[in-house]
């Protein structure tokens, strides 16, 4: 223990009095953390220095302990994996994906978007039946990243509309657009690109945008049946301004749900005003 308070003490405090107590307290450290002997004749600044030093030492120890804990857990996992690979005497696992109950398969498929489902539908009848459940057929999930490789955003948008032509229709209740890419050249136009799709879903109720750049000012074009629009981790742009030269601000919004029933324009304005405090709103929405 190099951080005993007495080591930095500059006063004439007899060390012989404090050292036995210190050593005894370090022996049973956890039992009495508040019993560190502090010389009474120190001024406030020196006391602070002692406490800060002590605190830092302990925090460092916690950090080191946590790091070594993570490492130890990682090593345990590694050896367990090796053991499970070999199977040892208990035999290896023969579990196949076909052994999974339908609910589990559905959970796996739920982690994929609608495009990725198309491939899986061709695998076998059972998979096709699972993917015919309402939670799949009523929820169209599209990744904007699929269309990033095109020469211009316009071409990407057109391809998306073509691809989805057979997917949209009466069934769709919920459309989700998301992106995992930082390059939002195309995705900034996602709503414009998707309007053609959205309008072909006469029973659409919810629209979700996740990690995209979206443009406010679209409420008039969305179907009557729409109940809510949710944006998650998006940047919102107040473009499409009515006769205004201003480009509009670009504001990051972690999460926002706009009620689309009733007066839409008013709802949107009320939802967005807190994020755009310096904008004259009547110009935009």
């Amino acid at each position, binding site marked *: 223990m190099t951080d005993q308070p007495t080591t930095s003490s500059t006063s004439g405090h007899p060390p012989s009095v404090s050292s036995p107590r210190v050593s005894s307290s370090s022996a049973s450290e956890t039992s009495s953390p508040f019993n560190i002997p502090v010389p009474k004749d120190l001024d406030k600044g020196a006391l602070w220095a002692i406490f800060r030093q002590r605190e830092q030492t302990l925090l460092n120890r916690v950090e080191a302990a946590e790091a070594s804990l993570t490492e130890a857990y990682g090593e345990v996992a590694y050896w367990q994996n090796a053991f499970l690979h070999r199977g040892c005497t208990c035999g290896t696992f023969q579990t196949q994906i076909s052994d999974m109950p339908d609910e589990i398969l559905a959970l796996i498929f739920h982690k*994929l978007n609608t495009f990725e489902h198309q491939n899986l539908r061709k695998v076998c009848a059972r998979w096709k039946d699972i993917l015919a459940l309402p939670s799949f057929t009523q929820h169209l999930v599209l990744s904007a990243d699929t269309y990033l490789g095109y020469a211009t955003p316009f071409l990407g948008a057109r391809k998306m509309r073509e691809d989805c032509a057979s997917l949209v229709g009466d069934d769709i209740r919920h459309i989700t657009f998301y992106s995992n890419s930082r390059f939002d050249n195309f995705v900034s136009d996602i709503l414009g690109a998707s309007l053609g799709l959205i309008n072909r879903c006469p029973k659409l109720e919810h629209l979700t945008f996740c990690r995209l750049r979206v443009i406010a000012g679209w409420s008039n074009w969305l179907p009557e049946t729409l109940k809510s629009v949710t944006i998650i981790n998006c940047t919102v742009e107040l473009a499409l301004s009515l006769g205004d030269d201003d480009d509009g601000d670009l504001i990051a919004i972690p999460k926002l749900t706009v009620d689309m029933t009733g007066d839409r324009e008013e709802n949107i304005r009320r939802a967005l005003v807190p994020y755009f405090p310096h904008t004259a709103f009547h110009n935009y929405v």
Partner: protein
Amino acid sequence: MSTAASSSTSETIAEPGLKIKVSTKEGEVFELDEKVAKMSQVIRGILEDLGEQNGGDDSVLPLTQVETRIFRKILVWLKYHAGHDKEEAPKAEEDEIIARFCEEIPEWDQKFLNVDQAVILEIMLAADYLDIKKLRGLCCKTVANILKTKTVEQIREMYGIENDFTPEEEEEIRKQTAWCEDEPPRQGSNH
């Protein structure tokens, strides 16, 4: 294994150091910290029911569906995450979207699940049985990430699945999905 504090149940029931005993399919008994055990919603539910009846310390919860070697693996995950995660709040539907499509699997969990798919599926089943949603979700995501990089033929071969469509059905599906027919499977780098 140390014997659990057996002084008086009424006193120890709310103690943070409470140990929960569970037994696996093979009958092996494990002693878990309460915090770790309660990450399983099933165990949490049973404990809450027992708590009202002041259940005894010696009772062992039988987890008859979980093999010991899988339970040991899950235990490591539980212990690691019990120490690292904040108390998990129930997720809103919107947050599910992020978890489903946008979240990457954390590095530690990737290493944890670096096993045969058969083992991942076993862990998934056990996590489902114990109702540990986060672990189940990680397993699902891991398998889904494998699926999305494979062609139909590769998937059938990998899992030994028979093509059980009639030629007519196959033709119908082919028509429905004709637009994505010639697309190569996208690679994992472009999630």
